[in-house]
């Protein structure tokens, strides 16, 4: 018997060494009521906004804003229009394009959302941009950075009670706060959130497009367009932080099938998109 156990343990250890890393994330149905975390106070929201602003500043310390006023205005107008429909009403959303050829978009807590110039260049119409905007808004709605980092006004731990850290002004508190900001930056640019969370966000984005009257399949086409690009450094962050595009497209197709919605349903606004982004 002892040999059998030793053998089984050995097999497991060998098996683990070749196992692809999968971020542990509990399916939602296993979460208990006290883990659903829906009781956010106004103070919590204020802290989230403050934290998101700091994270946005951290991003802008690495990437410049794209110097294209027309495009920035267009993104802001479109983003705010979508946010009024699908965003959290207590937040003021901010949208901007950063000057990098990376293909990605980033959502900071509190409603600070960035798109890369590289992503804008891959898109072909407004429906695709609307899909990406909705996707990022839903990251904020779902608190995909807030929850894992426990961004709260008051908490039982040093990292969760950051209102005091923001307010105290002590060096230690500021160091803690900056460490948390750096963690969030790592989450966006290095680690990513869970696969389940990304797929849930895609689902919400597609449903939003249908609700808004945009062509939902354009969002899927945008993902396919990224997939068709060479796997170079510009796709590196996206590949690292998101599930495979094949999986995302498959998930979207399954959703469309379950909702019984056909392709090419809704507006694309290709001309308006091109007129606002043609200078890139």
């Amino acid at each position: 018997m002892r040999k059998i156990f030793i053998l089984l343990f050995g097999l497991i250890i060998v098996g683990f060494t070749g196992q692809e890393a999968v971020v542990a994330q509990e399916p939602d149905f296993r979460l208990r009521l006290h883990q659903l975390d829906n009781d956010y106070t106004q103070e919590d929201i204020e802290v989230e906004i403050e934290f998101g602003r700091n994270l946005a500043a951290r991003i802008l310390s690495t990437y410049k804003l794209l110097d294209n006023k027309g495009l920035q205005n267009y993104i802001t107008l479109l983003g705010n229009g979508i946010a009024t429909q699908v965003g959290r009403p207590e937040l003021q959303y901010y949208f901007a394009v950063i000057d990098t050829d990376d293909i990605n978009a980033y959502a900071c807590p509190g409603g600070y959302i960035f798109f890369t110039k590289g992503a804008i260049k891959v898109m072909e119409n407004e429906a695709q941009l609307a899909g990406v905007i909705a996707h990022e808004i839903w990251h904020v709605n779902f608190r995909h950075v807030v929850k894992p980092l426990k961004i709260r006004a008051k908490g039982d731990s040093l990292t969760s009670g950051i209102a005091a850290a923001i307010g105290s002004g002590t060096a230690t508190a500021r160091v803690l706060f900056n460490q948390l900001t750096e963690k969030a930056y790592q989450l966006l640019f290095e680690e990513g959130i869970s696969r389940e969370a990304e797929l849930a966000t895609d689902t919400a984005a597609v449903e939003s497009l249908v609700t808004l009257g945009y062509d939902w399949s354009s969002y899927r086409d945008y993902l396919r367009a990224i997939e068709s690009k060479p796997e170079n450094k510009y796709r590196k962050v996206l590949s690292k932080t998101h599930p495979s595009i094949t999986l995302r497209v498959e998930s979207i197709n399954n959703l469309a099938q379950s909702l019984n919605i056909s392709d090419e349903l809704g507006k694309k606004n290709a001309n308006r998109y091109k007129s606002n982004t043609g200078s890139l």
Partner: protein
Amino acid sequence: MRTDIRAILDLCKLKILLGVFLLCFSPVLLADPYHYKNVLVGDRAATMGGAYNAVSDDSTGAYYNPAGLSFSYGDSLSGSGNAYHSTKTTYKESIADKDWVRDSTAVLPSFFGMIKKIGSADLAIAYVIPDSIIEHQDEQYDISDSHPTVANYYLSLHSEDRTNMIGPAISFKMSDSFSIGASLFYSYRIYRHQQHQFIVYKDTSADTSYESVKLEEYSYMPKIGIQFTPFEPLYIGLTISKSFLLSRVLKRDYSKIESGDYTLFAGAYSQEVDYPIQVSLGVAAYPSPSLLLAMDVDYYATTDEDLQSVTNIALGGEWFLNATNAIRGGLFTNNDNRPECTESSCSQAKLDMAGLTLGYSSFTRTSSFTLGIVYSTGSGKADVYGDRSVIVDMERESFTLLFAAGYNY
């Protein structure tokens, strides 16, 4: 497993020599390797009757099913202390016409554990006390009316029996619907027993005896587990485990004065034990974020010819009244692995038990506090004198008041 018992049963021959009552298996009775669920481990798990194999998503998962660690909610610390753990065993009319009642009370921490998520793995370390009894008894029995030769019987004993287990566990989530885990517990059991008996005869003569027993046992227990969901919201857990003995030494000192003659004895025995293989199957249903229902079936397959394979069943439920308050309940069996006790064949006793649990938890954002009770009872037969001359009815009740705290960070 019972070689220590056999050694001690030699003492029972005294009874034949003295012709009076010396309750000779008392040293081993409370060192209870015959039941597998004397202490329900953990807080949430214990208050759900131990039906936790398919749940196991906190640090107690290291003990119940390490595969469940993959579904834990962030890093966490948790510990439970049994504020009060008592066991009362009654042997009906075993000392002439009087009942022999043995009480045990103990305050013990039954569990402490922590989980840390590192990359794709969930690591845990847990400290578990799956069984603990402390018994102190000073009794005088006046049996002059019911016994032909004995006037008084004095019994003074002190017993302590505790099993400590500590070990790491690791779990990997292989897919959205499947996880696998393993744990390895190092176990140390220490059993100490001192017993003094004094018999006063009606002719004013007296006999006395004293014995001291110490048992130390070292073993390790690997456990392998999986959890998977065939369809939501159902989860299934499966574990297999077996303990392996490293060493087991029984030391016994004995002295007696009997009819004016004295006897001294001291011995030490190195013993072998073949522990049972435990296979546990659990099912858990999560019909809503407020409700959890679970069931475990634990099968212990022994190769010891003197013992039997045993199956225990546990049922448990959890209901969230709101986001900060939850209640739990459970039912469980704690069956005896010894064969039936009759006048023709008896291995000390046979006592099947069943129990119920109730619990309440209060939650904050990052912490929880649990209060719970575990009550079990059972009845059976016992061979009090070790030679099957008197088979008596026996009853046992066990009560635990537990409190526990958990912290997510």
